């Protein structure tokens, strides 16, 4: 087994395990921490896929911003009530959900099982570097890029408008 294959299994197993812990955790803060662990291992997988820029953005945005925001909200709201999570939904919904998910997993796995598809040995020059992704973003996907920036602006306005309390002066 080569080094990168070993790393794939380590990162993959850790990512999957922490994902399961996120979903099954009884404590919202612990779930958020496991989420960060999962993001970290995914960043490791991106590095194995020669996507260094993605790995850095993954940590910067997911671990550095989104999960911090989630933790912030958990702590900002009533901590004592939120941290201890009530159980999941009623038994029927839960078992139905798990059965459906299991069927979905089997379906996906059966579609993937037959072909052992390897990766090409050679990659084009500059694959996964900042320059190549920048070229794509500002050339082929320029319209999508601009639309995403509008979406982000809308999200900022929406977040402020929703979370802002009526009649309260902003500091």
């Amino acid at each position: 087994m080569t080094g990168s294959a070993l790393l794939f299994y380590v990162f993959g197993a850790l990512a999957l395990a922490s994902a399961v812990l996120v979903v099954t955790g009884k404590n919202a803060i612990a779930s958020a921490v496991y989420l960060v662990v999962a993001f970290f291992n995914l960043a490791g997988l991106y590095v194995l896929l020669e996507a260094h820029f993605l790995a850095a953005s993954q940590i910067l945005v997911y671990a550095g911003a989104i999960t911090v925001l989630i933790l912030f909200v958990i702590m900002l709201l009533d901590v004592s009530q939120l941290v201890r999570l009530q159980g999941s939904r009623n038994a029927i919904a839960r078992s139905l959900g798990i059965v459906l998910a299991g069927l979905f997993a089997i379906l996906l796995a059966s579609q993937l099982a037959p072909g052992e598809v390897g990766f090409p040995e050679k990659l084009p020059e500059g694959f996964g570097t900042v320059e190549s992704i920048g070229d794509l973003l500002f050339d082929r996907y320029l319209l999508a890029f601009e639309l995403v920036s509008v979406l982000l602006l809308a999200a900022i306005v929406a977040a402020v408008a929703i979370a802002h309390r009526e009649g309260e002066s902003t500091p």
Partner: protein
Amino acid sequence: MLLDLTMVLVRIALMLLVVLQVIPLLIWWERKVSAYIQSRRGPAYASAGPLRLFGIVHTLTDVVKLIGKEDITPSQANKPFHFIAPAIAMFVALLTFAVVPYSGSVVIDGREFSLQAANLNAGILYILAIASLGVYGILLAAWSSNNKYTILGGLRSSSQLVSYELVMSLALVGALMVYGSLELGKAVTHQSGPFWHWGAVVQPVAALLFIVCAFAETNRNPFDLPEGESEIVAGYHVEYSSLRFALFFMAEYANMIVASGVIATLFFGGYEIPFLPTETLRANAAPILRIVLLATAAGGTLAGLFFGYLFFQGNERGPRDPDAAALAVLFGFGPAVAAGAVLALTGGGHFEFGPTGASLVAAVLQFACFMAKLLFFAFLFIWVRWTLPRFRYDQLMRLGWKYMLPLALLNVLATAFILERMAK
């Protein structure tokens, strides 16, 4: 293969050495500089034998004290998180330094080895990414301690760090547009030559914004609200004692060192010596080394004479202060004699260097230059802490979002405009 492995180990060891060995020095500086600013004498009593060395021994006794203290975990704390939080803080601080080049490359067997722990294509993004993780150490410590003050500190720090990270990244965008790369090594070579090539001269607004944000990201005064003593006791680390407190304490200084290193690298030429780009330095390694040795011999003799004069003249501790004698030998006559001996042995400093030797001489000098810049900014951190009062929380948020963010955006716009005009 063996060479590769050795170089990897050397690079990592040097990186850790820079961060970990400067921490005690900075703690000592913090005490001495604060004392000087407040017209006190500062630590002066801890001694190793007859030597007090201006209180630097005090740091050592501090370590002994912290090891000797009881390690308390609050009974209502979440134990695993309480245990791991200081480790995260320190780990993140050390990890950030991995992409900072602390010297030019070394040529061995015709191959170049750049002196940084890891050379990444997205190096600056890596710094931003890892630095943004520092908040987890604080947040977990805050929440797991199960204490109102720690929670307040944690909330303050998370909102502060997220806000200023944004400005930090935007400030960097302007500088990156000039350098044309996210690699730190390229940013440094872009700034080589005279000092008006420095990022701070080309991108003054970005440099200023970045330095202010670095203060906020390291939770140093005037941005030290997460641990504001007068308001929330000590913020997120109230419930920590002994070595786990020491880890938080060290992480603060490690963060300062990393921030100083990044500021020096991105905006003040990094390891490049002003007016002496790497190629010039390598081509003239022999004469430059001779000048450096002569300067060491002369400067060392002068310093030795000065400390010797202090030794005989006496100070407030009376005449014959052993400290003065030790300083005279350590920083005066010792280096002077060593430099003189090297000069004498080589017949007045006639060196012959191959490419390896020349690159080694250049690397050592550039390392010294980088450390000088780093220590200057570390000093700036301490200086500002003891000079400025702390912000109020709403002032902090207003400064970040209403003044610095628009300024950073304007800077990006102006830079793009100027670059576009220059390209034509």
